[in-house]
């Protein structure tokens, strides 16, 4: 019999993953610090992390600020037998460490992966057609994720560019924030397209500096995710950018969004990193200026547009 699948985090995405896995016939242990029962056959909810050790594949579905804390706790219970796949968008610290690097440092687990792309919790939970990408160096991790989730309504692509998937997913948040802002400034579709395309290109440059492959940024984790954000998948970055663009203070915008806005957190970190590494990131610098309150929107836009032309 297949071992159970573990899911950590009983937020919208964690519960959607649990449902998805139960739908393809797997037993699921869902961890939550304050467990609420879930009426889905095959899903058992627990507040004991130690119980997750019986699983082989563990999904980590907690917001990025909590990843380190959870990983540290998890590190007491897991070992080399386990596989961890996270779905968190985020980067940590001045060196832009990815979530998988954080998990690797805090747990003995080595077979790691990141599931990303335009995956929306509600769509997954309802079983509507969707697709995502698993980034992992280990083919067996990709196999395990497909066995645990893939079915008639969910296609999962795979890539060995784990860093690319994580960076595209996280850096895309900065572009999404810029797009929200631009929408609030009533900029037209052409301008939004330029922002999105060049923003992804910039994200790819940062990604390459961190060892990722540029083409991953044109895939589901990069372009795919950004298209979903613009099409209205409820990404907090877009809503945050729009609120700030409409004149709300940062605190008010964050309050209105009601969720962690990763893009706003990492933009200044990416700007500093890029300056150290001499990577050109004009859009991220612009977003950093806007959210740290250092510049007027029209002035930032003018600076962006007046830069000397360059090859695409």
């Amino acid at each position, binding site marked *: 019999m297949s071992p159970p699948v573990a899911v950590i985090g009983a937020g919208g995405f964690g519960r959607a993953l649990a449902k998805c896995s139960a739908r393809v016939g797997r037993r699921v242990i869902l961890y939550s610090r304050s467990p609420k029962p879930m009426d889905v056959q095959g899903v058992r909810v627990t507040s004991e992390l130690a119980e997750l050790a019986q699983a082989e594949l563990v999904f980590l579905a907690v917001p990025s600020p909590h990843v380190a804390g959870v990983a540290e706790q998890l*590190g007491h219970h897991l070992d*080399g*037998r386990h596989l961890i796949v996270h779905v968190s968008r985020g980067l940590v610290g001045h060196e832009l460490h990815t979530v998988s690097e954080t998990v690797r440092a805090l*747990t003995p687990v*080595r077979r790691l992966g990141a599931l990303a792309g335009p995956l929306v919790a509600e769509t997954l939970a309802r079983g509507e057609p969707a697709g995502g990408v698993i980034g992992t160096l*280990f083919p067996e991790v990709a196999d395990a994720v497909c066995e645990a989730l893939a079915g008639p309504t969910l296609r999962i692509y795979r890539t060995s560019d784990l860093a690319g998937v994580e960076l595209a997913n996280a850096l895309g948040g900065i572009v999404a924030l810029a797009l929200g802002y631009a929408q609030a400034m009533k900029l037209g579709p052409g301008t939004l397209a330029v922002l999105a395309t060049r923003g992804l290109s910039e994200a790819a440059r940062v990604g390459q500096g961190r060892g990722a492959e540029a083409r991953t940024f044109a895939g589901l984790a990069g372009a795919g995710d950004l298209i979903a954000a613009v099409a209205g998948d409820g990404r907090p970055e877009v809503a945050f950018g729009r609120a700030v663009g409409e004149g709300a203070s940062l605190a008010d915008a964050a309050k209105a969004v009601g969720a962690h806005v990763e893009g706003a957190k990492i933009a200044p970190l990416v700007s500093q990193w890029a300056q150290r590494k001499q990577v050109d990131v004009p859009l991220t610098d612009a977003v950093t200026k806007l959210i740290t309150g250092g510049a007027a929107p029209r002035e930032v836009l003018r600076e962006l547009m007046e830069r000397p032309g360059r090859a695409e």
Partner: protein
Amino acid sequence: MVKFLPTKPLRLPRLRTYVPRPEDPKIFWFNSERDDIVQEVVRRIVERYEDEEAAELILSDCAYHEIRRYEESKTEGAARKLEHWRSLIRRLGRMSYEGKHEALRGIAEDMAKDVAGNFDPRVYKFAVRAVPGLLTAAMNPSNIMRNLVDSGSRLDDLIAGEGPIDKIRHLSRRGTIVLVPTHSSNLDSLAIAWVLFREGLSPVVYGAGKNLFSNPIISFFMHNLGAYRVDRRIRAALYKEVLKAYSCVVIERGYHSLFFPGGTRSRSGAVELRLKLGLAGSGVEAFARNQVRGVERRVYFVPATINYALVLEAETLIDDFLKEEGKARYIIEDDEFSRLERWISFFQKFRGLDSACIIRFGEPLDPYCNPVDDDGESLAPDGRVIDPRGYASRRGSPVVDGSRDAAYTRDLGNAIADRYLAETVVMHTQLVAHVLFRRLVRVTPGLDLFGRLRHRGDVAVPRDELVADLAETRDRLLRLCDEGRAHASPAVRDMSADALLDRALQVWDGYHSRPVARVGGGAVIIEDPNLLLFYSNRIRTLAVDLASDDPAERAAATEIAVMEKHR
């Protein structure tokens, strides 16, 4: 069947065969297992290509690459070998299933025999007695008798060993040690072999480029002291598989091994940071294979850095790096290593230099990058003992999985590269070169590397200023050392900045055919930026941490730090 060997390796006659004693290291039994190891390698290769189509493909690939090689070769017998491979290609399509496997078996066996090393305890015992004498005699030919008698202690002063040596010795009794040092000189093997002997560690099996076997004396020692031959001219995929299978079988059987994961000597002088691990990765597979067979033998990877104040082949290496930057590197056949007068000059420079070479061993790791305790048990980040067998298992059972092990190997390459950075010992020549090179970058804003390297003899730094700069940079380095982020040689720690500068200039002067820097009119004048780049590259990753808050110095340090291509 084709013969790959241009020369037959020399061995001592078996008049008085050495019978190993129980307390002897495992490698003393190597010769008795040698044929078995070759046969096991052949068996694995044939098994891997059981499928007829796969066997045909690998044979075609082999013939294609060998034909190309021999078409360009001017050596004696090349025409006969060329004809052999052409004949194989012609017959391949008509061969039966058995015929293809027979051909594969024959080629794999020839390759494995060519690769396989030899270990003669008599040669080993002779070498550890004689080599220090010969080396130290080379340093001081005028007093040859005294040097021959007193050579061991002199070599001890010259080459220092640091790190958890007792722990490594203990672990070598529990499992197989896979030693993975940095590689900057052909002297590395000799230096490390001496330190292993001196510290009571077992000799190791190691791969050496076939070009090193061209000198009959070096070839004799290498061949009889456990070296196996790696012929980089052979491009056939099958050859790489034979090498990998050979190193895997050797590790599985418990022979401590040494690999230079950087592949070749670091051309740029930098610590290698992008490690593919190559053959060293077979240690990961070896552990998994032993688990599948139920053999409880651990594998421990031991990173080490080999740090020289003076690099024998520095000029050739940096020239090659600059010439070949961005292109495929070629095999250097003729460099300082093969020229006796450079050896003598090199060792004469080493005279009186305590710790001219420092080998620093890092903490051992299991194949999955976990640290291990003093008993060799793997440790989780929280200090808990964990079972490494889990990593080689899927759904509770150990399995051999090439893709999985390739991923573990990549991970291990990163972990070892991190250890290299942390375990690098900064030598005085590197620190002086770094400070001078930083000056060069600072006074040449906007120039690219090659533009800067053209500044020969026209950048002068007032000596007082340079000494002050060096003193401050050294203080910052020592602070990094206190934080556990770097190590410094005794000279860097103890000498005054003034003396450090003098010693570096004195060590370079007269050994390198071009002066690196010279003193004139109260200033130090940069003469050879290439060599400065070579020596300073070793600590390039520390550049920003070693810079002061002065904006111009910081900008220069940032530029040095992002010279990504110099990895």
